[in-house]
């Protein structure tokens, strides 16, 4: 369970998170939508401790992320995150990209790590590309590799930060399919996305962020069909 309690965060004079409260249960898929600058991506990078918070708490399975005593490296083994820019490691093959963390962080042996990596890469549809270098893959393929790379660590939670926003339109579908598949398999996911159809189909709950606050949260049908908050209504009207 991920618990976000009254989290505030500023970048200098600009407050980007103004008291966020959100609890995500195991197996839930929560999608976060909203305009740019609403704080959605920042929230994700706070959950795995990449960004500090100014006040409030974030707890992952009871462990406070930003406590001084927390071993962030260990915590991050449980939380997978995929960014908008897939950040492939260019000097390693696809297989090596995925086996790196299992071998060096989890201490798995080469054969064991490769077995896991192969499984995840096949899972996302890259089984044929194991010995290819990421530079030769399309954006969509690299993004799926990034997803497999995160999954190879057997995380309990997966965070997706606008993972299709940097892709050419025709490549978006394959990545969304992968996300849908993960959701159906029961992965706990928090997705920040602009893809409304995807959000509607896949989520258990949809949250609408507006200027650093969570204006509204609810089941997809409720948010998309009958939004209560004026800002939500405005936003949804503008993206139709």
């Amino acid at each position, binding site marked *: 369970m991920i618990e976000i309690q009254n989290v505030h965060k500023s970048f200098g004079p600009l407050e980007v998170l103004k008291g966020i409260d959100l609890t995500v249960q195991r197996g839930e898929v929560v999608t976060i939508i909203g305009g740019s600058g609403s704080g959605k991506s920042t929230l994700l990078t706070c959950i*795995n401790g*990449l960004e500090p918070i100014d006040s409030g708490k974030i707890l992952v399975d009871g462990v406070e992320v930003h406590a001084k005593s927390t071993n*962030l*490296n*260990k915590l*991050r*083994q449980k*939380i*997978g*995150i995929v*960014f908008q*820019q897939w*950040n492939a*490691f*260019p*000097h390693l093959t696809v297989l090596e990209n995925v086996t*790196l*963390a299992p071998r*060096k*962080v*989890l201490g798995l042996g080469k054969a064991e790590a490769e077995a896991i990596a192969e499984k995840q890469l096949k899972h996302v549809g890259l089984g044929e590309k194991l010995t290819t*270098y*990421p*530079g*030769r893959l399309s954006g969509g393929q690299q993004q799926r590799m*990034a997803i497999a*790379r*995160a999954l190879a*660590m057997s995380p309990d939670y997966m965070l997706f930060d606008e993972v299709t926003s940097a892709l050419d339109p025709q490549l978006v579908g394959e990545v969304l399919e992968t996300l849908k598949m993960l959701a159906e398999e029961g992965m706990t996911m928090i997705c920040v996305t602009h893809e409304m159809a995807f959000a509607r189909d896949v989520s258990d709950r949809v949250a609408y962020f507006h200027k650093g606050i969570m204006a509204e949260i609810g089941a997809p049908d409720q948010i998309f069909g009958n939004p209560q908050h004026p800002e939500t209504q405005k936003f949804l009207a503008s993206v139709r």
Partner: protein
Amino acid sequence: MFGYTFQWDQALARLPKMLDGAVVTMEVAVLSMLIGIAFAILLTLLRLSGSRPLRAVATSWVEIARNTPALFQIYMAHFGIATFGIHLSPFVSLLIGITFNNAGYLAENFRGALKAIPHTQTRAGRSLGMSQLQAFRYIILPQMLRISFLPMTNQMVWAVLMTSLGVTVGMNTDLYGVTQDLNALTFRTFELFAIAAVIFYVITKIITLGARLIAARLFRY
């Protein structure tokens, strides 16, 4: 034509000895590069560290190495250290001097290379649970070395050419030193040093061409 009779055969007869010297030259150059790269990586890490004194030490090394003559650095290694009662052999003084120089220049190259690597690479590694050191070792360092490959090759060429300065601290087993000794024997200055020049040129070309081949094989992506 000239008021001078070239006597190439006398000089060429000395070729084997000069080639032996060339081997010693390469030994010094290769060692100075290997140790220099190791120190340069260390200096790079120090310059990134949060500790001010460590950063200052590393920056001092780099700036002194890059802003003073290599010959000065070799003198310091030999005569400077001698004032503390430690008398180093010419080979070791030369090696220390060139290594110090290499480390400084390479550290600066590495710094430029690091700038070309997006910080998101480290972020991706840390998100997978890697420590800062692991991320540096497995993700950043390999890329840094690949980007720096050409400057490192140039530095290797420099190192080979710098070994000639060894004579100033009494080195006589490297190519230049051998040539100088032979010159004192035979006074065939022009012929001997011309041959030495050719040997240096060939070594330099082998290094640069070899590097290009290695790069083509290693950096296939």
